[in-house]
């Protein structure tokens, strides 16, 4: 049993982190896949969520705000709420910008958030970060606790997936996709574009904030390095594009595949001499880029392409054989 646990610890850990990335990827899918909003500041919303939950759930500490020792569930909900409020403010300012300008604005804002995290010691403990973040199920032995946390992440993905699929298959999703396809025409069809874009931006950012909080609780520590754009924004984008933008299953699959490649390459590069290991960090980014290229060459819309929802059957609910008046 103990050997089995050792053997399985790696894949369970890998899947947990992949699952957390899948959460963020689903958030980005709402923004880019459904609505066509180019958010290049994922790391910012990740940080807001991670730090919110960390501050609320850790034990009191003299060096930074909190901790308030609240339950993890409260931390997760508040992480979503805070990320949502921040997104509302940012969206209000930037969503009237055209897509490429929105990308630039969100990069800038994510950098500002990262610098705040790094420098406002009273709030975030600065570069030292916040340690000892509680992880749910810690009363279990280590391996079952790890499995239980994976199950929690999986359950959260399932809930988000079902909620987003419903949205995508409803007139809401249709309006969002119409805005993505042609904003002017959607406007001519009477849709309030600004409000809709704000809706998608806030919802997507809330999900990203939840992803940040889950990450903080998973690795039990959050510091400024965890909010580097490279390992958050870049990876989540690659995951969504590789998996299939606009397709919720694609977003999840992309997260698992890309995270598997990313962490497997770490296994390899760890074997290298120290001198090489330092350089290999860049090689990993290159390998991810290569993987994306190969996937897009084979399937230009990602592993699972977007499919328009099936039209609603007209005779549903009427017993067969009866006249359809």
């Amino acid at each position, binding site marked *: 049993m103990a050997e089995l646990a050792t053997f399985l610890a790696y894949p369970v850990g890998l899947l947990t982190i992949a699952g957390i990335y899948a959460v963020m990827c689903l958030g980005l899918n709402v923004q880019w896949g459904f609505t066509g909003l180019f958010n290049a500041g994922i790391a910012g919303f990740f940080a807001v969520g991670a730090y919110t939950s960390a501050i609320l759930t850790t034990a009191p500490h003299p060096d930074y705000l909190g901790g308030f020792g609240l339950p993890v569930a409260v931390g997760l909900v508040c992480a979503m709420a805070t990320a949502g409020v921040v997104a509302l403010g940012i969206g209000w300012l930037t969503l009237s910008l055209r897509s490429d300008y929105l990308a630039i604005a969100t990069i800038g804002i994510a950098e500002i958030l990262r610098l705040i995290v790094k420098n406002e010691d009273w709030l975030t403990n600065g570069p030292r970060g916040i340690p000892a973040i509680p992880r749910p199920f810690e009363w279990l032995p280590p391996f079952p606790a790890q499995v239980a946390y994976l199950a929690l992440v999986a359950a959260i993905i399932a809930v988000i997936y079902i909620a987003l699929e*419903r949205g995508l298959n409803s007139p809401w999703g249709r*309006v969002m996709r119409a805005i993505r396809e042609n904003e002017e*025409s*959607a406007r*001519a*069809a*009477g849709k309030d574009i600004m409000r809709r874009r704000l809706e998608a931006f806030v919802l997507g950012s809330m999900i990203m904030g939840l992803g940040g909080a889950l990450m903080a609780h998973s690795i039990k520590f959050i510091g400024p390095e965890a909010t580097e754009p490279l390992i958050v924004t870049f990876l989540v984008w690659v995951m969504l594009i590789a998996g299939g933008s606009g397709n919720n299953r694609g977003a999840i699959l992309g997260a698992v595949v890309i995270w598997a490649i990313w962490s497997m390459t770490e296994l390899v590069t760890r074997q290298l001499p120290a001198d090489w290991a330092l350089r290999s960090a860049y090689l990993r980014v290159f390998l991810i880029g290569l993987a994306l290229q190969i996937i897009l060459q084979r399937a230009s819309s990602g592993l699972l392409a977007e499919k*328009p929802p099936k*039209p609603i059957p007209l005779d549903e609910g009427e017993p067969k054989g009866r006249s359809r008046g």
Partner: protein
Amino acid sequence: MSATIAVENVSKFFGGVRAVNDCSLTVEKGSITGLIGPNGAGKTTLFNTVAGFFKPTAGRITLDGRDITGLPPHRLFHLGLVRTFQIPHEFSRMTVLENLCVVPGGQTGESLMRSWLFWPRVKSEERTVRRRAEDTLSFLNLAHVRDELAGNLSGGQKKLLELGRVIMSGAKTILLDEPGAGVNRTLLADLSAHIRHLNRDRGYTFCIIEHDMDLIAELCDPVIVMAQGAVMTQGKMADVRRDPAVIEAYFGGGGAADT
């Protein structure tokens, strides 16, 4: 007859360019009004201004007597005024059916919260919307491409789809920007038959920008001629064609255009 759209002394400047300059005109209820003029006369700018895409620099616009100056397009949509685009603006990666179903306003399921909570109601509304869309598709002879992505349609079919979205909107005042551009003769005949049918049998009012003089002559009465951002003259096509000033401005002085 009463005016559906009344444009009163409207101007729209872009920096120093006076695209529309103190322009006044009316579109009568139940008419198919043609709007013609040489390139750069300000027709499309006027359309954009009436449809709420641009705010006028000066002047006043009313719809059925109600001041609509500066209202955004989504408000005008709900007041019953829609426009189409010169270049078809379809939703490419959505099916033809979806292109139509997205249009009707005020659907319960357009709210994410309500589609989570009231799914049965959303579904039954969706069935109603789909039935209307299917009717529109058969009216336009597009039923066979129902499940095709709109981006894969031919240019002419896209124009028909554009008209289909207009029908789905429920609006009765329609601004058509060059419906005939890039459409072959056969389809053009269909298109003008549809427009006439909607006008006569369903009470739609149209204002049409068009460069195809035959289409204008066939469909439109009256015809308004714009030049340099203002109305030059208006009347029946036959009279407008004979007006020397129009020939000078529009037909480039060539009397041969007057056939």
